[in-house]
């Protein structure tokens, strides 16, 4: 106890002790207050406006608050702000040269926020990586990819490169590439496709579905069928359409052609031998030895 009082007596004057107490009080009250107010402001704006604005306003409030706290503390310690600001200007130039990338990211961040090409919660495709925008920070955009990996894209990269905002607009188009055999009646195919889309609850009536004749393919007629859904229902519609079309085509006997491959053992050989065997292993027909047989084969495995 004597040691502490002697320490205070020798090194810390009463005035300095008072300053120290004030600083501790400012920090102890200021920081928690700042954090609580930031949370409140962020959640209030998220509730009334959007998650994007909530996050931005929270951060802005926090940074301004921290700056004010810092200035107050410096003032308490007796630093005058005028020479500090002058020094900061000179230091700023030096730091600016040394940290061009960082500064570029910070400035790009402002442009990203102002441009509003995407907001927190949007789904974006950046260089083939698709994910949900998790946060737009001072230096980078954080993205949660759908396989739950974390992607960090520097703000400068986002400004410089192309990206696709998948959920910018409220409705999305689902494209189904369909091939049907040449023998099929295209009018019937068209009726089936529109019927499948109409029966799906998440397929919007407006804008209406559309069938586009794509091309005469090498072994099929290629069509493009498009329908629209709310962006939230995009995957439901895509699955529903593709599965529904396959099911209806099977039911209605519409052939979906697929590539057929003929195998030869060589240019001069005969076709490969083929036996047709029924479920009770009776040989129905054969071209293996040229003879037909009604009996059971000795070794059906052959």
């Amino acid at each position: 106890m004597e040691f502490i009082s002697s320490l205070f007596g020798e090194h810390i004057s009463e005035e300095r002790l008072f300053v120290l107490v004030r600083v501790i009080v400012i920090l102890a009250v200021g920081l928690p207050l700042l954090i609580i107010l930031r949370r409140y402001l962020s959640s209030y704006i998220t509730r009334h406006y959007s998650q994007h604005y909530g996050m931005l306003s929270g951060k802005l409030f926090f940074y301004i608050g921290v700056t004010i706290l810092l200035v107050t503390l410096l003032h308490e310690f007796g630093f005058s702000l005028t020479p500090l600001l002058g020094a900061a200007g000179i230091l700023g130039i030096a730091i600016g040269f040394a940290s061009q990338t960082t500064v570029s990211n910070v400035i790009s961040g402002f442009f990203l926020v102002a441009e509003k090409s995407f907001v927190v919660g949007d789904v974006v495709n950046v260089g083939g990586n698709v994910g949900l925008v998790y946060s737009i920070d001072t230096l980078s955009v954080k993205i949660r990819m759908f396989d739950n990996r974390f992607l960090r894209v520097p703000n400068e990269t986002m400004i410089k490169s192309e990206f696709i905002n998948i959920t910018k607009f409220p409705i999305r188009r689902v494209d189904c590439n369909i091939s049907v055999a040449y023998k099929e009646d295209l009018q019937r195919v068209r009726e089936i496709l529109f019927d499948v889309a109409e029966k799906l609850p998440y397929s919007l009536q407006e804008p209406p579905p559309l069938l586009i004749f794509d091309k005469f393919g090498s072994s099929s007629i290629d069509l493009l069928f498009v329908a629209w859904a709310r962006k939230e229902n995009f995957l439901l519609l895509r699955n529903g359409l593709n599965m529904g079309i396959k099911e209806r085509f099977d039911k209605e006997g519409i052939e979906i052609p697929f590539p057929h491959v003929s195998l030869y053992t060589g240019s001069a050989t005969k076709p490969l031998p083929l036996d047709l065997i029924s479920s009770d292993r009776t040989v129905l027909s054969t071209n293996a030895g040229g003879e037909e047989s009604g009996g059971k084969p000795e070794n059906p495995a052959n």
Partner: protein
Amino acid sequence: MELTNWPIVTLKDGEMQSHRVGPLTIFLKRLLNEVWVDSYRDDKVRGKPAPLPEKPNWMRMSLPGDFERYWIRPVMPDKPVIIDTEHSYRFVGGTKTRVYSRVPVWVRVTPEGRDDLVVADIPTVELSETWFGSFTEGELSYAVSSTARRILTEDLLEPHLVVCPLEIHNKDSEELKFEKVCLRVERLSIFAKGEAMWSDETVIRYEGKDSETDMESKGVRPVEAGDATLVGKPRTAVRKSIGLKAFRLLKDFHIPGF
């Protein structure tokens, strides 16, 4: 006249009751302060309620008290309805016309006297969704195909369909092509008389494609409804008159998004 379609149901503890409104049968079961709800749709419009499905998909709701009596009431769909006329319909400048469209109602179950405790809100018919607006902005709506009849006959009055009288004024000098109209049904009340249901009258004033269309919900039963009783309040508060984009801008979807 008794409103048999919209009764007050008494549910004893552990007891199940069913009730049909058009193609929808609603099943209600009470267990202490919990209400269990399930529903089933079939092709019938009238008759006995459908039997409980073999594997019911109960939805349980816990209430802040033991309520024995429950209101079954009609309510308008929760989104605007786009009425699509089956045939092209044109109004020359200065025309005033009254047409009737029918919209399938939703069934709402609440404890008696507690409108704030919605136990169930189920559509009698599952309507297709549609988009009203442009590719970049608009609102999700339900699609209803209508013949936009000028004369209403008894056979059109069905237990699950509410008749919406629309009075359309084309105040513009140019022709109005009525293909689709967006009806803000969530602002309409429902009146019932016997099996028939009516919404309050909607007056739509079209003042040209560059002006917003003025849509007014009268908030009173239409003359055709006679002494019908108010059975369903609007989902959202009624504003006397609202300037809205009621007619679809035909140019919006001419190029289908390519």
